[in-house]
């Protein structure tokens, strides 16, 4: 009786030790998350297709042509990169707000939708090298500018001195800047609504603070209708890049390589000129 108790005790200790030993040896093998450095790139290579999500409501970066095909400045860049990497692309029209989540969840490989690089987004996803830097611009009707008799302004504070009311989109950095400059402001649900208000027959604002490519595309749009809009304030704004999954180290390196070549060879600038972006 006493002996059997002793044997059981020793047996338990031995089993615990053996179990611990196996755990120490096997554990790290099981813990290894993946044998590959970049599962996203492996998937893409295996599929042969990059799944790209975009919201085609942002001319000239991405919008729809007569056949509802997605075209634009960024579309051409992404297509050129894919061609250089020997991969096909599958363009998916999705909601802007869903792109970053989908890329993080792995249901999309690449987000191409005029994404500006910022610290918040970098916590969730990775960015490629920027292909452009947008410009923050205050635009107004040429007739209004002539009436005020002003040229290019040096700072947003000048708008305050001129006692102008500026339209902008709520929740944007433009709004924050106008707020700290103490400029009289009216916030709209989007920049397009602000610009439409500015050119209407009974405007509630004198000018709009927005950024390229919105400003340039709307200026072009109204020029076609014989309405002249001019830029009266112009500063460098945010870098624009493509969005990839945080694990996609290899994928991002491959794309950055091609992008660097495209920037150096002037191909990006050619595309920018072609799309007036």
């Amino acid at each position, binding site marked *: 009786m006493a002996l059997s108790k002793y044997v059981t005790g020793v047996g338990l200790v031995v089993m615990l030790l053996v179990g611990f030993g196996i755990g120490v040896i096997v554990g790290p093998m099981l813990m290894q998350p993946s044998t590959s450095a970049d599962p996203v790139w492996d998937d893409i290579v295996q599929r042969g297709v990059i799944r790209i999500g975009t919201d085609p409501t942002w001319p000239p970066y991405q919008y*729809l042509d007569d056949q*509802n095909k997605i075209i634009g400045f960024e579309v051409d860049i992404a297509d050129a990169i894919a061609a250089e990497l020997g991969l096909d692309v599958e363009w998916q029209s999705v909601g802007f707000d869903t792109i970053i*989540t989908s890329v993080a*969840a792995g249901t999309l490989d690449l987000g191409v939708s005029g994404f500006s690089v910022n610290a918040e987004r970098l916590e969730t996803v990775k960015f490629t090298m920027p292909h452009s830097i947008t410009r923050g611009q205050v635009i107004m009707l040429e007739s209004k500018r002539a009436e005020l008799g002003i040229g290019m302004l040096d700072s947003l504070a000048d708008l305050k001195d001129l006692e102008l009311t500026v339209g902008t989109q709520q929740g944007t950095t433009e709004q924050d800047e106008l707020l700290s400059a103490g400029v009289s402001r009216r916030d709209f649900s989007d920049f397009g609504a602000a610009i439409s208000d500015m050119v209407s027959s009974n405007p509630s604002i004198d000018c709009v603070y927005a950024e390229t490519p919105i400003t340039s595309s709307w200026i072009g749009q109204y020029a076609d209708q014989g309405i002249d809009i001019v830029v009266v304030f112009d500063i460098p704004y945010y870098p624009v890049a493509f969005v990839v999954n945080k694990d996609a180290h290899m994928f991002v390196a491959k794309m950055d390589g091609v992008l660097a070549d495209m920037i150096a060879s002037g191909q990006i600038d050619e595309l920018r000129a072609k799309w007036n972006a």
Partner: protein
Amino acid sequence: MEITQQLLILIGGVTNTLAISIISFLVGILVGLPLAFLRTYEKSLAFLVELFEKIFRGIPELVLMLMFYFGLSFFFPFPFGNAFFTAVFVLGLRSGANQSQIFRGAIRGVGEEQMIAGRSVGLSKLQSIVRVMIPQVFIFSTPGLGSEYALLIKDSAYAFILGIPEIMRSAELIRWNTYDLVTPYVAAAFLYILLTFPISTWLDTWGSRRKKKLGL
């Protein structure tokens, strides 16, 4: 963007709106009908059913949709990474919670004596429900189902936030590609009226006529 192209985009939107609403409506029947009978005849489970209804009826569809899509797609890319699935899942369950209430009212309207009559001729409880109660419950619930369908058509507009090309998203695509910020919304409003008004009105009158004919 040509006007014909805009019309094609909108027609594509109508197809998707109808697909989301009709599938959600059917999911709603599949969920709501059993729940209504459970809540009426299985008092022990009534609490759970009520909890489900309270949760899904108490949270705005937009919140539900974003919560399921953004919350679950990260952990379960399949199937919640699919925006269409998520939209139908959320609207279907929400509609199930609504329809459960509609059916419960109808069960009360049909009356307990129908159930007793069924049992008295030797049908089991389940048989009485399927053969006697359900056919009458449907006729009693047509006005409610009509407005529930109209509600689904309208609520499907929230799916635009997930990028599903239904009517609202189509209008948005046209707005930004034509620089016309107002007309596409007017067109969308017209289409929603066109989709909701005739069907809910027709269901309502069909139900009343049927009820009169059957002497209920």
